[in-house]
């Protein structure tokens, strides 16, 4: 029987980047910084025949989440696949750096990154790569003081350098619909052949990159339905929880040991892969 209750949920996936950012805040506390009317757009796209967007696909809002000060950075997957360019990257980086300064001055400021991206914006090449490196440095700086929460709801997912940035976050939230991975399916198929990865096989893609598998592997702290109330509740809970005892990316020995269990010369089934990865340890 189909559970029709999903019809009563307010979808998070269907919200724009701006609506997603605003939905996280306590009512009436959200304030957008460098909004579209400020016209901080990419100087590189127009000369390559791509129409720029007035906010470069990056929305920054400050306010209160569950009564605690937070900055939310939302990458809008609708514009250029959420790709990170010089400007959108600089906006995200500056928001994180200002949050570091707030914390250093004794004002706790957490950060939430709503990520829908294929990674670097190819039209901006090295500038996008540099931006992602800076974002990663800024996440590392901020997570010493306050939690950085990465949310990938779908449908774009989180790929490329930004998947590494998400891996540095204190906590990760995903839906079943979202995907998380370094290389996307089409990139793997193109580079390694269809025998390695059939990018038209959607069941395979979600079995490997999907939120459920990533949660089972222990890479995700909260797996939520495509429901705005659930996303908000998960983010609030994680902000209230504060910093983890140890960040996931600091558990180097544990991750090395797990990686050693996996022989890359064999073709792994997603379920078997997950069982081997998590064997004998809590996810």
């Amino acid at each position, binding site marked *: 029987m189909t559970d029709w209750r999903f019809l009563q949920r307010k979808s998070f996936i269907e919200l724009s980047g701006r609506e997603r950012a605003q939905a996280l805040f306590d009512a009436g506390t959200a304030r957008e910084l460098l909004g579209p*009317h400020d016209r901080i757009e990419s100087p590189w796209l127009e000369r390559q*025949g791509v*129409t720029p*967007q*007035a906010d470069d696909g990056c929305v920054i809002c400050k306010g209160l989440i569950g009564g605690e000060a937070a900055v939310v950075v939302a990458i*809008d997957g609708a*514009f250029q696949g959420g790709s990170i360019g010089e400007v959108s990257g600089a906006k995200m980086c500056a928001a994180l750096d200002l949050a570091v300064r707030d914390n250093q001055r004794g004002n706790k400021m957490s950060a939430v990154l709503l990520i829908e991206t294929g990674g670097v914006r190819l039209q901006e090449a090295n500038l996008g790569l540099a931006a992602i490196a800076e974002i990663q440095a800024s996440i590392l700086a901020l997570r010493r003081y306050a939690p950085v929460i990465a949310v990938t709801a779908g449908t774009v997912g989180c790929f490329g350098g930004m998947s590494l940035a998400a891996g540095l976050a204190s906590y990760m939230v995903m839906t079943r619909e979202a995907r998380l991975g370094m290389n996307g399916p089409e990139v793997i198929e193109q580079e390694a052949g269809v025998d390695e990865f059939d990018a038209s096989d959607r069941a395979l893609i979600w079995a490997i990159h999907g939120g459920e598998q990533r949660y089972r592997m222990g890479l995700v702290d909260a797996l939520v339905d495509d429901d705005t109330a659930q996303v908000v509740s998960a983010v609030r809970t994680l902000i209230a929880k504060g910093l983890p005892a140890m960040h996931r990316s600091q558990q180097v020995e544990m991750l090395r040991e797990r990686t050693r269990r996996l022989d890359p010369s064999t073709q792994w089934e997603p379920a078997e892969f997950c069982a081997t990865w998590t064997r004998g340890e809590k996810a």
Partner: protein
Amino acid sequence: MIETLEYEYPDRQATTARAHVGAVGSGDLEVLLEPSGTNRAQVRIRTSVSGFASTWKTVLDRFFSRYDEAVRIEINDAGATPGTVALRLEQAVEASRR
């Protein structure tokens, strides 16, 4: 390449209207609407699909036959159909009145 089109509509009413709607995704557009600071309405369109100036003019003429505020409208277009453009303009007006 990107085509930039500019249009003006004279004798408009002063306004404080301000809105932003839409996204520059395939087949869609974003509309920024704000006061022009003059007695004219000014429109600037940047579109990734060139050669449709007369269609844009028709859509805008129809819009400004019913909307008389002295706004500056900026449109960033990624290949929206005329129907989508007309709806986004209406949506911007509605958002500016909330």
